[in-house]
Every structure is written in structure tokens, then in C-alpha cells.
């Protein structure tokens, strides 16, 4: 495999570069996303805060409908409006407010600074163009380089993401690639301009377990090489544990728990996070009975009052149905939004 310098034509310079170490790569405060639907207002994300440091990996974990994907789509500015409505106190990328940018300025950020990899690689690629054309397009649009240069760089990128015989495969169409190889093409496209932040939305969910392991390893290698920040959206606790420094657990549009991944899942301070761990079958041995969380995730149009998790919670008391628990610091680097988080942390 050739050593490729994955530096984009524009490098990472320009917008919002900052020498201040303390400025996080991304800082989101009070993010709310609502959709007007024929059945009423749907609040998909409800006041989410998170920070991501340079070079850090953050996992956003949650079940379907928890708002984890919409969260990052709002950051990327790709939520359609209408019907969507994004509000936030701040969405700072390297200290600069993303919402102040015009659409054309935002287009320069997308891809060059913040890139995204999606869940269904076959659906995210255009079936009518070869993968070489599609990777090349990213380079040509953003840097205005010639077709020949774009083609050469596309080949280098395909080599780097581990696509065998990249030379000949440049001219293949997406349908000629397997799911795993398509995902590598997507990653090559995302990396083409050396973004500072990569957002991967369920990048391995559609893949077989052995291919998943390969793609996760590739993402980690690339991260180590380029020093980019990574946000990984997943529903799989095992995947989060494998790659993420920190994890954010979402439920019904809110963050219910966050902290260093290992701590969150070995000593959860929110009953939902604990429930998720207990519900997973173990590879090491058969359990007499799994401990499921009762009920099902709520309909986002009809989220229970008080703590949204209270109807499914085994610890729930009267207060939980009335009073909304605040997300608050429980210990160093740990936050939880349960009335009884402190007790859980102490082990009561």
C-alpha cells in the first residue's frame, strides 16, 4: 500500500483556524430540532449539548428515534427547512458560529472541514457515475484541480482505504462493489479534503461482522494518522466501546448520560444506560434470562412528561413523571439526567 499524504489541496487551513488549544473542535449548546408533520410538531432533538476536542472520538449512542442522526445533520446544516427547524444557543466549529454562515460558505465547510459517512453506502453513491468520478468530483469542486490530478489523487485515496487494485477499480460503478468496499469508497471521499472532523452515521451497521471489524480498524488508523476528530453514531454498545473515547447516550431527543465510554458502560448512572447493557446477550456465555427494558422507545410525537424514560424505568417513582431531570455533572467528566444519578453512582 502506497504511503499517501492525505492532505487535501486546501489543507485544513483557512476557516476558523485557531491556535488556542482550549477551543474545542466542535461545541454545541442547546441544540433543538423540530419538524412540522401532518400529525403535529415532532421534536426530534430537545436541547442537546456536547463538545468534541481535536482528535477525540465521541460515540453518540441511542435506539431508533432517539435523535442521534438528526443531531449531527443539524450540525452539518443538512436538515431540510421546512419542515425542519433548527435552533441552538451555539454551534461553534473551531470557535466560529456555523449558523452565521451563508449556504455557499457552509458548502465550503462541508467536505473540506467536516465530512460525513452514511449508513447505506450503496444508497449514498450515485449509481450512474464510476467511483473514480465521484471521488474526483469532491476534489475538483473544492480545489478546482484538473481531471487528471483528481484521478491520480482518487487512486491514492482508494489505495489508502484498502481497496485492492485501485487502478482498475477507479472505473467501476458502485454496483460492482460489495457493501464493505462501497463503505471504503465513501470513506475515501470523506477524507479527500482532509477534514478536521469526520462524522460517521452507523458506518458499519449494514456490514458483516468481519468487514465491520476491518472498517472500524481503518477509521481508527486514519484518525491516528490525520489527527481528525471523529463522531460515531451507533446503536451498538460494543462498537462504541471499541473506538470511542467518550460516549453520549441519547433517549427521546435528549442526552441522558455522557462520559468516558468505559466508565459509562461499566458503571452507568442512568437506568437507561444500565438497561441497554443488561439487555445485550453475551458472547461469553448464555444467560438464564436476558433483562430487557420493558415497553418500547416512545413515539417522538408523544414523548412522556417528566423524565421521558420513566414509563420504562424500574426505578421510577412519582416524581419522575412530573419533574424533568436536568443533565448535570455527577463526577469528573460524567453527566447524567436521572433524579437518582448520584445514588446510582455511589452504588445504592
Amino acid at each position: 500500500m502506497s504511503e499517501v499524504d492525505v492532505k487535501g489541496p486546501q489543507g485544513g487551513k483557512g476557516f476558523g483556524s485557531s491556535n488556542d488549544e482550549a477551543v474545542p473542535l466542535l461545541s454545541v449548546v442547546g441544540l433543538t430540532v423540530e419538524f412540522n408533520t401532518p400529525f403535529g410538531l415532532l421534536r426530534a432533538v430537545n436541547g442537546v449539548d456536547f463538545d468534541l476536542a481535536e482528535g477525540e472520538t465521541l460515540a453518540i449512542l441511542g435506539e431508533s428515534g432517539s435523535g442521534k442522526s438528526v443531531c449531527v445533520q443539524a450540525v452539518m446544516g443538512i436538515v431540510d427547512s421546512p419542515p425542519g427547524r433548527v435552533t441552538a444557543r451555539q454551534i461553534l466549529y473551531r470557535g466560529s458560529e456555523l449558523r452565521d454562515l451563508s449556504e455557499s460558505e457552509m458548502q465550503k465547510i462541508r467536505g473540506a472541514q467536516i465530512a460525513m459517512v452514511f449508513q447505506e453506502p450503496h444508497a449514498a453513491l450515485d449509481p450512474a457515475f464510476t467511483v473514480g468520478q465521484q471521488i474526483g468530483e469532491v476534489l475538483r469542486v473544492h480545489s478546482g484541480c484538473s481531471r487528471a490530478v483528481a484521478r491520480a489523487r482518487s487512486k491514492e485515496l482508494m489505495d489508502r482505504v484498502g481497496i485492492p487494485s485501485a487502478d482498475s477499480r477507479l472505473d467501476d460503478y458502485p454496483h460492482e462493489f460489495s457493501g464493505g468496499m462501497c463503505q471504503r469508497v465513501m470513506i475515501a471521499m470523506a477524507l479527500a479534503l482532509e477534514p478536521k472532523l469526520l462524522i460517521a452515521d452507523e458506518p458499519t451497521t449494514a456490514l458483516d461482522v468481519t468487514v465491520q471489524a476491518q472498517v472500524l480498524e481503518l477509521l481508527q488508523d486514519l484518525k491516528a494518522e490525520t489527527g481528525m476528530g471523529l463522531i460515531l453514531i451507533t446503536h451498538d454498545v460494543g462498537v462504541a466501546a471499541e473506538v470511542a473515547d467518550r460516549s453520549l447516550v441519547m433517549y427521546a431527543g435528549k442526552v441522558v448520560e455522557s462520559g468516558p465510554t468505559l466508565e459509562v458502560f461499566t458503571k452507568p448512572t442512568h437506568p437507561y444506560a444500565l438497561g441497554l447493557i443488561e439487555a445485550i446477550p453475551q458472547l461469553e456465555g448464555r444467560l438464564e434470562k436476558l433483562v430487557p427494558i420493558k415497553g418500547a422507545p416512545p413515539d417522538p410525537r408523544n414523548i412522556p412528561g417528566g423524565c421521558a424514560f420513566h414509563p420504562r424505568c424500574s426505578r421510577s417513582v412519582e416524581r419522575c413523571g412530573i419533574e424533568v431531570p436536568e443533565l448535570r455533572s455527577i463526577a469528573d467528566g460524567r453527566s447524567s439526567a436521572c433524579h437518582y444519578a448520584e445514588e446510582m453512582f455511589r452504588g445504592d
Partner: protein
Amino acid sequence: METDRQGGRQGSLPILRLENVSKEFQLRSRSVITRRNATLKAVDGVSLDVKSGETLGVVGESGCGKSTLARIILRLEDATSGDVYFRQQNITRLPASRLVGLRRHIQMVFQDPFASLDPRMTIGAIIAEPMVIHKGVVEKGEERDSAHELLERVGLRRQYAERFPHEFSGGQRQRIGIARALASKPELVICDEPVSALDVSVQAQILNLLKELQDDLGVTYIFIAHDLSVVRQISDRVAVMYLGKIVEIGNSDEIYRNPVHPYTQSLLAAVPANPGRPKSFQQVPKLQGEVPSPLDPPSGCHFRTRCWKASSKCAEERPVLMDRLHHGHPSACHYPESTSVDITGITPVGRQSDV
């Protein structure tokens, strides 16, 4: 006896027996220039027994033939060669007129609970339909009551019988799918990825339900899934498939603790460990590349192109499924090797206190 060799329970006769079952699909290229016919061997000489009352898990990556195998057993697909015996009766070439009778005893739970229920039928009608088709399962006129009972049995309220599928969540729909599968009182239920479309918190409910129903009704399951932890939880025995062939089969504990085929080992090694747990089989090399095209499988052992042990023998000679190590479970590898992990002292996460 073959059944013992595969780690099956001794004694009782198998409810299902597959002998050297293969399924080939003829593919025709429509292009004039490259016109050639290709043969895709989706299932390639599979033999196995399923004992009454047990759960046989079938695992493998996409394209390994696990779903085709299920379709052959249900006679939704005809085997190209080989024989399928259900309760000692050869059903491989049962005439179409007798398939309805067969399917009273063999039912299926599908993956997608959103696609597998007719949106225009009430839940009650969906569950009662098998009892109407298969006469004699319940007394005439009692289908409705039986449907209500089944609803309660799978953890739903009787009143739901009047509602339509769109009113239910994914987990509830899968419960309805299970109730329908059980309506004709089948002896064998094939579950094809029954929990892979469900959220983790709901998945555990369905796995527990399937187990409870088995304990109560004595039904036999063939459980097909790609999630190795899920298969571990539900199965008594496990068959691992690769490119249409079984590469290893045996008791669940044996397969998960002491896999001897390199493919099984690397499959288990690829599963992300749960937080705070040691990863299994770390000494096993990470599997490179992807499953080769089933249109043009490698000679000899199909796995050799991805295998770190492959020798010239593997390219020439196809390894048969047998117990080379006298471990009690067979594998199809020329160089099987024990890699048992010491898992004593490992307790499940989050439950340290009550184990």
C-alpha cells in the same frame, strides 16, 4: 451415530434431517457479448440433524446460504440434490398439493415485522388465518378465541385483535408474527433474523419470549442470525456456514468456547467486546478481505483464500466435516486447532451482584 458426532442430544429421533442438500441457481447473463451461464451454489452439500425441542442456531456472513437453507426446509425452494426428512418422511419432492399439510407443522418467523404482516388485515384475522387454512387445528368456530389466547401468550392484550398492523411498534409486530407462526401448532419454527430489525432493548424481550414459548410448547427452532451473541443466547447447538457449506457444528458452549475452525475463530474474534470485557480470541489473526463470489468459489477449501493456515493441501483437497480432534464436534478444516478461552470467573456485565 451421526447425531452424536454433531453434538446432538442422544436418544430421540431427529425431527428434521438434511442429507447432502444442495441448491444451485442457474444465472444467465443477458449481455450478448459476455453471454455465459453461471451456476451459483447457494447451499453445497449440507447434512445435519435437528432434535425435537432443541434450538439449532445457524450463523454466517451474508451470502453464506443460511436463508436459502431455511427456504429449502420450508419447500419455498426446491433442493437441486439431496434429501430433507421431516419426522422420517422425505419431503424433498413432496407434491405441491401436500405442501399445505407440511407447512402446518413447519412455520416461519420473518425478519422484517413491517413487511411480513398484511396491512389490511386486523391482528385477529392475521393470527386466525393459519387456523382457518389448516382445518382441524382448532374446532371450527373457535379460531377467534384461539387467536385471543395466542395474543395473550405472546404478551399482547386481547383487545388488540381488532387493530391493524400499523398501530404497533416493531417489537409488538414481531410478537404478532410469532403468534401467527404458532397458530397452526407447528413442531418446527424457522426464525430468520427475527430480532435484527429491532432495537436492543426490545430484542431481549423477543429472545426471552421465544425461549419461554419453547419451554411451554416444546417447539423446535432453527434460528438464523448474523449476530453471534444473539445466537449464543438462544441456541443449544450452532452450525457455522461459509459459502454454502457447514464449516463447524456442535454444542453452543463447544463452538463458542472452543472453536476449532479458523473461520469460526475469526468470526468470534471480530465481534466487538462489550465495555470492560476482554475481547475473545485476540490471538486469532484479523480476517482480511471479503467472502469470495459464490459464482466462482475457491478450489478445495472455500475459506483458504482468507485463511492464515492455508497450504497447498487446502487448494487441492476439500476438507470434509468430521471430528478430527475427537473433541466431540466436527469441523471442515484440514488443520483444526483448539483455541479454548478461559472464561471462568467472567461474570456478565452489570449483574456482578446477583450472579
